[in-house]
């Protein structure tokens, strides 16, 4: 009885099966250098507050996530991207 009860309460999480698999776009398309001057491209890796998206959302490999974050920080320093924003993307 105890065994059966346990099984009933267990919720299977099958959501991930329907989602397309995430991949690192830099590895896939062979981009080696991420330019800090290209604001439109870097916009893909920040949310509407201007925060850098985590790897679990962007799907980047660690190597390229590091490069992305460095490029974004350079862009912020040069006022190409904001440090703090509100409604950056609408």
């Amino acid at each position, binding site marked *: 009885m105890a065994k059966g009860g346990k099984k009933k309460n267990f919720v299977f999480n099958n959501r991930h099966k329907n989602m397309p698999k995430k991949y690192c776009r830099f590895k896939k398309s062979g981009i*080696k*250098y991420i*330019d800090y*001057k*290209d604001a439109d491209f870097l916009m893909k890796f920040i949310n509407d507050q201007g925060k850098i998206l985590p790897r679990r959302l962007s799907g980047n490999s660690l190597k390229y996530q590091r490069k992305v974050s460095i490029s974004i920080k*350079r862009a*912020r*320093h*040069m*006022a*190409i*991207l*904001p*440090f*703090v*924003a509100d409604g950056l993307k609408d």
Partner: protein
Amino acid sequence: METNNYEAAVIFTPVLSETQLKEAVKTYRELITANKGTIVNEESWGLTKLAYNIQKKSSGFYHFFEFNVSPDFIKAFDIQLRRDERVLRFINLKLDKHALLYNERRKNGEFSKAKKAQKQTATT
């Protein structure tokens, strides 16, 4: 002597007139060439809006230098930019081989507005 490739991005104040801006750019160009450097490429964005205010200015003149110079010069170049009141913000970067390749392609206009059209042709 060993040389490296560098990229410098400078934001000049919007207060400068056109001739003053040209003069300011010229001083840095001459500073590089006077120290046995060679300028590979230059890019200017003109008066551009800043993402946030710097020294109470909301816009600035962006200018990019790409040059080849010995590493000893960079420190002096840095100090010169730091002292200059016409400069709001600057950054000095050493370029690796991937960055060089990228800049070469950028110079040829591969990443400009034709980028989207190129992407479409690449996928089809």
